């Protein structure tokens, strides 16, 4: 238990938790906002999604729908990049410092 208290007091641990939680919840909120924004458009403004782009038959709904898919991937990428570059480093430090 003393080891647990030691880790909890470790500034690296506190930084890890603070940064990971804030990014994780922020990105989750963005994803929810994007997806339910799309669903609400589909439900309440289908005609908006049917506006043609530049005189052709392709509607604005096509790039909007596809960009939800692409953004889901991009957001995942942002998290993974952040985690690979900084969280793993912090975790390694925490593990080394608290090896008993």
């Amino acid at each position, binding site marked *: *238990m003393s080891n*647990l208290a030691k*880790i*909890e007091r470790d500034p690296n*641990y506190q930084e*890890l*938790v603070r940064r*990971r939680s804030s*990014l*994780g*919840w922020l*990105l*989750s909120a963005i*994803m*929810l906002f*994007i*997806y*339910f924004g*799309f*669903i*609400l458009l*589909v*439900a*309440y403004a*289908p*005609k908006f*999604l*049917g506006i*043609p782009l530049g005189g*052709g*038959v*392709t*509607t604005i*709904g*096509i790039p909007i*729908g*596809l960009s*939800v*898919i*692409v953004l*889901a*991937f991009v*957001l*995942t*990428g942002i*998290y*993974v990049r952040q*985690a*690979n570059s900084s969280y*793993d480093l912090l*975790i390694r430090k*925490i*593990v080394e410092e*608290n090896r008993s």
Partner: protein
Amino acid sequence: MKRFAWLSVILLASVPTIALAAGAVEGGSKQAINWSAIGMFVGFVGLTLAITYWAAKRTASAADFYSAGGGITGFQNGLAIAGDYMSAASFLGISGLVYTSGYDGLIYSVGWLVGWPIVTFLIAEQLRNLGKFTFADVTSFRLGQTEIRILAACGSLVTVAFYLIAQMVGAGKLIQLLFGLDYWIAVVLVGGLMMIYVTFGGMKATTWVQIIKAVLLLAGATFMAGAVLYKFGFSPEALFTKATEVHPKKLAIMEPGSLISNPLSAISLGLALMFGTAGLPHILMRFFTVKDAQAARKSVFYATGFIGYFYILTFIIGFGAITLVSTDAMFLDGSILEKTKSGIAAIKGGSNMAAIHLANAVGGNLFLGFISAVAFATILAVVSGLALAGASSISHDLYGMVIKGGNANEQDEIRVSKIATLVLGVLAIFLGIVFENQNVAFMVGLAFAIAASCNFPVLVMSIFWKGLTTRGAVVGGFLGLVSAVVGVVLSPAVWEVTLGFAKGSAPIKLDNPALFSMAIAFAGIWLVSILDRSKRAAVDRDGFDAQYVRSQTGIGAASATAH
């Protein structure tokens, strides 16, 4: 090992003969026997059985059986997750939906993808750090083992059962059409192969079946979408122009149509798809096959990319089918005089066959055979993952942890899971045959609703909320489970279509119950937990800090065992 070899030989040898016999007797509604499809399918089965043989020799411990010894890399696991998740229902179903309704198909594709980022941000790493074989390892980390394991097993088994029945019925129908096999033979074949993969090869064989299937499916879909775009000079605008010319609904296929009429229903379905993904036991189990949290995180990233790419392809494939299949009399079903609901010409085997016929249109008979074999491989990969998750829940959670109190002999536990796989396989075959002529479309939605309303709330609250108690999790979880099932039974899809009550008489107007069943689950968990003054509740809350440190840092996490 000898038993395994014999089984494989018999199974392999019997495929063409059964096909021949079935085709000779019947015919009619079924397709003519497709030899190139059968050839490629036999090739796939032969390859996967060889892998199963290889895996069986390397599967000795419980860790090998449940989690492939933790020796799968992040990239491999990303492919395997994609292979586990991209079901024939989503491949054929979404392209078929695009074929009949255009844009509406894209709404489904989006819904099926958006759960993955949530899994990455909130669940994947924590799951790997806290668990070993099943997601119940995580939910029961600091809570009462017995109660939570039983809850998780109920949630898992009910989810797996509905998902499995839907897959079996779909498989039977599909194979009947593609290979000219009788329905029951197709169901027995799928169930039989699934039992062989899982009982002999465990997670190792299942993983490789899923990886091979993912590669084949991605390659096949890429070729098909590429061929469609090639015909239109790689201009999506030209493809859409032609599609709006030949589709009876004209420009209406380029915007949301009648699929989503009730906004609340749309939101409810969206919730089920998004959070259900994060509660599917066979998907969650995949995170234990990699060596650490870092690899788990990478694997979801790859999986999200593969799945997103695949859904974009299915959209192109659906539009390709509108332009190339609906205009070619060879693919149309002349015996059906009235058209489909949207007005587009009915195709042989129903609109779910749109992608299959398109394969023929762009690549001829040989490519048709390839895509048919891939569709079969897809079903096998998904049902194997489901069976393994169900069996693990029985052997690890119920037998190992509840009945034996965590002191089960490893070999006994593996034996129980093999027996459980056989029981599940036989049950799946039986239910697949029973439900042959039932409308099972609601079952996948139900599986997602249960995963979102029982497994997901308990999992996410156990990881993040210190105040969660055993009593709160059990009460809230079961409330979510029950309200999801009741909500589906009282919904129009089951009340009016399956049970045959008058149209408009369904007590609940939502097609998917997630909106209220998730709310009930979270509210139940929260309320019962804060009111819980029991001794156990104090232990539950005290355990949180240690769990949280481990979930964040991985210190003390189950390590990879085999290489």
